[in-house]
Every structure is written in C-alpha cells, then in structure tokens.
C-alpha cells in the first residue's frame, strides 16, 4: 500500500515536472551540456535550465571555477564536450580567438523575443554571446562611521582619502580603507578599474602595442599607492573574500567590493547584523576630476559552441533562454544584477547599476587583454611595495606583456 502510494506520487511528480518543463521550454529534442563558473547567481540560472530535461532532451551541467582552463580544449573537439559555455567579458576572448563560438543571429531572431537589445554581445555583425547579468566593483561604506564624523558619503577618490584621514586622526581606525590588492589577478583588476577611471587606454588603437607607460598609467599607479597608506600593511595578500571578512570584522570603513558579493555582506548570514545594517552602497568613485567611475563593468553571459549539431545548438539556446527568462529574474531579485527585461532592480543591485549609468567603461573584450592582465598581475607588486618607480613598473609590464603576445603570435 505504502509502496504503491510512493510510486504513484513519484510518478505523478515526474509526469508533472516533465510535462510542465516540456511545455515551457518547447524543446523538441537534443542534448544540452553546460560548462560555467561556479557561483550562486550562475547556479540560479543553470538550475532553471536543468528543468528543461525531458524524455527527448538531456541537460547536463558542469559548474567549476576551473572553467576557463578547460573551455578551449573542451569546445575544440567535434562534437564539442559542451554545447553552452558560460563566460564573462574576459573569458570569451580565448573562445573567439580560437573560432569556437557559433554566431547566434538566426537563433536570436527565432527564440530571442524576450531579449533586450543590450543583452546581445556583438563583434562586427555577429551576435556571439547573450549577457544576462552585470557586475562591477563599487563602494561599500560604513554609514555609522560617516555619521559620527558628520560627513557626506565620498564620491571621488580624493574625498575618500580625506575621509580616511579624518577616520585615522579621530582614532576610529588606523587603516580605514581596503581594496582587493592581492598580487596577481586581483591587483591587475584594480589597476584596470583605476586606469579606466583615469580615461586611460591599454593598447594603441588598432594594434597590440601597449599604451600604458604614459601620464595616465603613472597617475593610476600613484593613486593606488596613495590609497595603500590607509590600508592594512598586508594589502598585497587581500582577496575579495578576505576583504569581506575584514569588513564584517569591523576593521574597514570604506572599500571597493564586488557587486556580486552584496548579499554576502548585507544578507542575514553575514554574521554581523550591526555592520550589515550600517552599510551604504554607492557607485564606484570617480578619480582625477573625471566623471567616469573608476570601475570596469563586467557581464556574464553564454555562448553556444560551434562544433555541435544544429539541433543541439537550438536545444541549448532554448534551454538557456528558459534559464534567463524574465520570471526567473523576478523570482530571484537579490541573486544578481540581472540585465534581463522587466527586472525591477532592488536596493542591493543599485551599486552596479548606478556605476553603469554614470558611464563606467566595460572591461576590454580584446584578444590581448588576458595577456595584459597577467603581466599587470605579476609586475606591479614591486611598485606597490615601494621597491621601484611607477615608470619602471610600467616598463616591466609592457616588456612582460610583449613577450607573451609575441609567443601567442599576436604581435611581431
């Protein structure tokens, strides 16, 4: 009796799931295989896409922080190991350079009624990816400390330095600032933020030649160095997760943190309700009298592999469109800064959205940028520790970058 009930129940649920999924995704048949980075907002999307599985359609998902390292080999073989690669503006470049991405123009026309025009990532005439969420580093500040000092929340780096000086001289904190300056990827990302805010360029127009060693580059480094005077001396080992711990331990008053980590700081499980409540979110600060926020804008999106059958490509596109449908964003408003239609952004997404609205520039989607980022990550730490001049650091970055792009066949 009991067994029969369970079987009926399971059977009924399965039928329900299958039929509802089948009805909503409208996939006739195919195999969907998704590869992507592993974090909560991505999981929200892929969990939805998974429900498209039916008798004729299989959906397999592999989310891993190692996705960047396996995506090129996995998509090179025919048929590709994965039909969908979830990427961001930096990780799409290796796929584009190896010609592994399917142009989506016809699929967008057929199934993309719910897409906003700015979700389409184009290079030339081809739609190569669909973006579904945005991200950027922006300001997290302790409102209680600013109130205590009686100052307005700072909006430029110069104001931040003034406030930091006040916090120090009032004896509230010795090191009121923090940034993700861990040598390597994080430090380079912060350089990119500041350099974009300075209005700087990374490459000479239309070529792989670096264009860092100039006034903009030096000003960028000097501002970064000035800020470190107000940071805990171990700043070159601080990652985003480390910074979150420091902030929630009450050691930091103002920091430039990732928008995707807002819920970890303000949510119920932040571990320090007092600090969470006192936190003010604001767009990334501007610098050097410019009106552009000093932050690179990032998007996360998906591409469809080239080396797969048309049927699988169609099924994959449909499954992903189901994963990023407007209702998904409405049901999970705090999960990410969705770039999806009809998304009513809550307070937690405002930091990123306002940074974008103020005209921050996107992280460069260029085949050289990955090499530049790597060179910045390894060559800037000597300067940050005061062991060499800004000019020397930038010369080193350019030399190291040129050696890499030469090896990659991107420059002579």
């Amino acid at each position: 009796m009991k067994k029969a009930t369970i079987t009926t129940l399971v059977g009924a649920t399965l039928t329900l799931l299958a039929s509802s999924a089948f009805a909503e995704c409208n996939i006739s048949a195919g195999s969907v295989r998704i590869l992507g980075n592993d974090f909560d907002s991505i999981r929200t999307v892929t969990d939805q896409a998974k429900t498209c599985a039916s008798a004729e359609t299989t959906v397999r998902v592999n989310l891993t922080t190692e996705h960047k390292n396996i995506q090129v080999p996995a998509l090179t073989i025919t048929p590709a190991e994965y039909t969908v690669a979830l990427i961001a503006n930096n990780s799409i470049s290796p796929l584009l350079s190896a010609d592994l991405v399917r142009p989506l123009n016809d699929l967008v026309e057929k199934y993309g009624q719910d897409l906003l025009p700015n979700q389409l990532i184009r290079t030339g005439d081809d739609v190569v990816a669909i973006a579904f969420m945005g991200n950027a580093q922006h300001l997290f500040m302790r409102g209680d400390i600013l109130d205590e000092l009686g100052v307005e929340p700072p909006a430029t780096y110069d104001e931040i330095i003034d406030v930091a000086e006040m916090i120090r001289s009032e004896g509230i904190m010795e090191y009121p600032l923090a940034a993700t300056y861990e040598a390597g990827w994080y430090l380079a990302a912060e350089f990119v933020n500041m350099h974009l805010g300075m209005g700087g360029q990374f490459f000479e127009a239309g070529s792989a030649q670096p264009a860092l060693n100039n006034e903009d580059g030096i000003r960028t480094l000097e501002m970064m160095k000035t800020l470190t005077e107000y940071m805990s001396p171990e700043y070159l080992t601080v990652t985003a997760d480390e910074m979150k711990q420091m902030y929630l331990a009450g050691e930091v008053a103002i920091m430039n943190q990732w928008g995707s980590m807002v819920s970890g700081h303000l949510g119920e499980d932040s571990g320090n309700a007092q600090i969470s409540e006192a936190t003010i979110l604001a767009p990334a600060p501007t610098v050097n009298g410019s009106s552009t926020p000093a932050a690179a804008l990032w998007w996360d999106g998906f591409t469809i592999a080239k080396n797969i059958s048309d049927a699988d490509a169609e099924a994959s596109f449909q499954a992903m469109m189901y994963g990023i449908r407007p209702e998904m964003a409405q049901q999970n408003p705090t999960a990410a800064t969705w770039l999806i239609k009809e998304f009513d952004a809550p307070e937690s997404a405002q930091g990123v959205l306002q940074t974008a609205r103020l005209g921050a520039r996107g992280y460069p989607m260029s085949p050289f940028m990955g090499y530049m980022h790597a060179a910045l990550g390894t060559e800037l730490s000597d300067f940050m520790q005061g062991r060499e001049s800004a000019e020397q650091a930038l010369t080193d970055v350019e030399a190291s970058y040129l050696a890499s792009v030469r090896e990659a066949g991107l420059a002579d």
Partner: protein
Amino acid sequence: MTHKTFFAFIFPSLLAMILFIALPIGSIVIQSLHVEHPRILVEVENCGPFGCERETRVDTQATQALQDEQPLGQFNGLGTYFDRRHLATEEVSHIFNNNEGFQDIVRQMYNLPFYKALSFTLVYTFIVTPLGMALGFSIALAVNAIPRFLKGPIIFFSLLPMIVTPLVGSLILFWMINTQGVIGSNLQLLFEDPDLSLRASPLLTWITLIVYGVWSMAPFSFVVFYAGLQTVPSDTLESAKIDGASRWERIRFVVMPHLIPLATFVALVQLMDNFRVFEPIVGFSAEANATSLSWNIFNDLRGQVDQQYSSAAATSVLTVFGVVVLLMPVLIRLWRDFNRKA
C-alpha cells in the same frame, strides 16, 4: 644472467620509464622550441550591455589555414628561452653594461621574473634541506630515547606535517599568522608593534615560507633516520660507552658515520622536493614577495584566461636542467661510493 633474461626483467620498467618520463619530457622540449603562428588581426566594433568600442580581434579563418599546415606552431628555436620571461639574455647584458655597482646589478636582476623565481627557489632549497634534515635527525634521536609505550603516539604526531596536504597545511598556517590569527596577534603583542605582519614584508614572508618548509619536510628525514637508528650496531655503542664516551660523542663518532649513506639519500630526495617548492607560495598568497620556478609554470598555464604553453615548457626544461645541476655533487658522490664498493 644472460643478456636476454636481463632484458626480459628490465623491459617492463624500461617501457614505463620511456612512456611516462622520457616521452613527456621530449614533448615539452619540442613544445618549448615553438611559438604560435602569427595571427591575422582585424578591427571590429564590439558591442555589449555597456556600449560599443572599436577593438581588435583575430581573423580565425585566416589563422586556421596556417594552423592546419603546421599544428605545432611556428619554429622559434631557443627564442623563448632567451626572452624576458626566462633567461632574458638581452636584459641581462644591458644590466651588466649599465649599473651602479654590485648591489644595483642584484636589484635589477631581481626585477626579471626568472631570476626572481630562481633566487627564492635556491635560497629555499639550500636553507630548508639542511635544517629539515637536522630537525628530522634530532626528532629521530629523541624518539629513539623515549620509553616504548610513548613511541607510537609521538611518532604519529611527528609525522602529521607530512600527512597534511601541503596546500592545506600552508593555508591553515596562513590563517594563523593573519593579524587576527592566533600567531599573528600574539607576535604583535610580543613585539609591541600593532603593524607587525608576517605577510607584509618580503623578508618576513621568506622566513615564514622557510619555517613552513622545515616543518613540513622534517618528518620525511625523521622516518628515514629513525629506521636507520635501529640498524646501529649495539656492541659498538656499548663498547663506546665502556670507553667513557658521552652521549654526544657516541652520536658524533658512532651513529653519524653509520648513517652517512642514508643522509646522502635523504639529501637527494629533499633537494629535489625543495627545488620544486610551490604549494606554500599559493597557500600563503606570497606571490608578491616570493615566486618559484614551479609557480612561474603554474602562472603561465593557469594564471589567466590564456594558456602560454611554450613559456611554461621552457621554464619546465630549465627546471629539469636546474635539478640535474643541483644533484650533480650528490650523484658524483654516489658514483664514487659505488665504485669503491665494487
């Protein structure tokens, strides 16, 4: 033993060595001599959620034709070995022609990634190997002297650093030396310096890594030396005792000479192990202050979105070369011992 029987005995291991050691090294050498084909670049307008920018991209079809013709890439000879990220011959000769004395040469050389990595790797190897062996030997002597029933638990605890995965071990220590961690905050109290941080200055980072290295390397020496101690002839020890030799004299003149061949073996293994130091650098987020050859290889392959195979291959070959040079004295010594016995 006939040649045929000898060959039949040795063949399986010979095959395994060719398959798993010689071939991979050969492929790395070939890889290091090639770089990727020149890519054909075109300028396009890239558009995204935050507007459009004119950017360059690779003309994949034109590049593909070259790639199909020569899948290995373009032959580059020793070019990769001599570029700035490796031996940096051009930069080095420039440094020797333009400098302000010895200190300036050292400073400028340290600015080149390969020499920066090499200097830490060598310092680490030559400090950690003897200290680790000395610590292991003293633990072995101590354990050998304690009552039997205590030996089991003490041996287990002494082996812990070796059982813990290096990455996990270094991460745990990293959290402990954090300024909020138990070691970090106690050091601040001890030296009455609220800014003291083991992670901030290069010197302290090097010391931390070396201390960690000694801690994690000692158990191996301990195990081998402890086994060796069981083979020390007890009559020689007893007669030394009757002759009035102190404990130190017995160790110095009986135990140590007996263990010398063992020490050569331990030194060999430890030199190789320490030369490929890698995990603590990742675990301690120490790349700003200390890099090693292995870390450079890792950074080429896993640092960013692009993989730089030729650069990693060249560093690997240089590392293999370094290991051979490093082991030369020990190998010569072994060879001599072997000849003497024969």
